[in-house]
């Protein structure tokens, strides 16, 4: 991490989520809600189709910050709102989410970072924010 000031942009990150990734996350996290792997269940609940686990999107968004930090242990706070579901089609392309992040505040050895998560034109996370140690 080089010098940190308000307006510093972190290297962006693009993540592709396919059905296989949702199955793998379901297994690793223990979240087997069928809306994350079963179209029939997802559509019966009014969703357009299978959607990614919000916590998987949140985990992916964290990487834009932890990849930038020398040590991910310097992440002190991290929060998001789940504003729009990420629809993951049953094909080889999957869903692509682009994460970008910018330093919004620097004070007392910490920096506050705003994260933006876009799937196509849609913001899938709201008020995504991390506080990191920068001393």
């Amino acid at each position: 991490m080089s010098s940190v000031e308000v307006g510093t942009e972190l290297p962006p990150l693009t993540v592709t989520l396919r059905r296989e990734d949702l199955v793998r996350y379901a297994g690793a996290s223990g979240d087997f809600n069928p809306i994350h792997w079963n179209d029939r269940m997802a559509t019966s609940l009014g969703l357009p189709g299978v959607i990614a686990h919000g916590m998987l999107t949140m985990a992916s968004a964290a990487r834009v910050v932890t990849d930038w930090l020398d040590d991910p242990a310097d992440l002190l706070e991290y929060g998001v709102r789940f504003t729009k579901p990420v629809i993951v089609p049953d094909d080889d392309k999957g869903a692509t989410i682009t994460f970008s992040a910018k330093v919004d505040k620097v004070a007392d050895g910490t920096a506050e970072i705003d994260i933006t998560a876009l799937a196509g034109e849609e913001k899938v996370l709201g008020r995504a924010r991390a506080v990191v140690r920068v001393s």
Partner: protein
Amino acid sequence: MTIDATMVGRSYAAAESYQVGREKIREFADAIGDANPAYRGDDAIAPPTFAFMVANPALLRLLADDELGLRLDRIVHGAQKFSYTRPIKAGDDIAATATITTVRKAGDVEVIMYETALTTVDGDPIATSTSTISHNRADS
């Protein structure tokens, strides 16, 4: 019964502590596509959102309180926040306790915030997970 604001403050401890293994951390890091070397090996720390999985057994106890009348399949996760005293690491033995912090009702929908304290089994703080969930009582 159904959940209401008088139930703010109720606490639910996970039935068992969560023992963090380095291979579980690796499996989780692989599943989120994160190759960070900090999440591998004997001195592995866990990725930030690993805390949600460790907090989950306390949520299951909260959902098991019949007086709240909540059903997992009627819940949508609205917001999530973590504060870390230190990262979770391989070898940790973690106690999770969830406490209801706010309840707001709008028709059939209840918006519930609960905070899960993650500590060592000796009570030293590790992290706090704050979750906002919407529970919809309407039959679709």
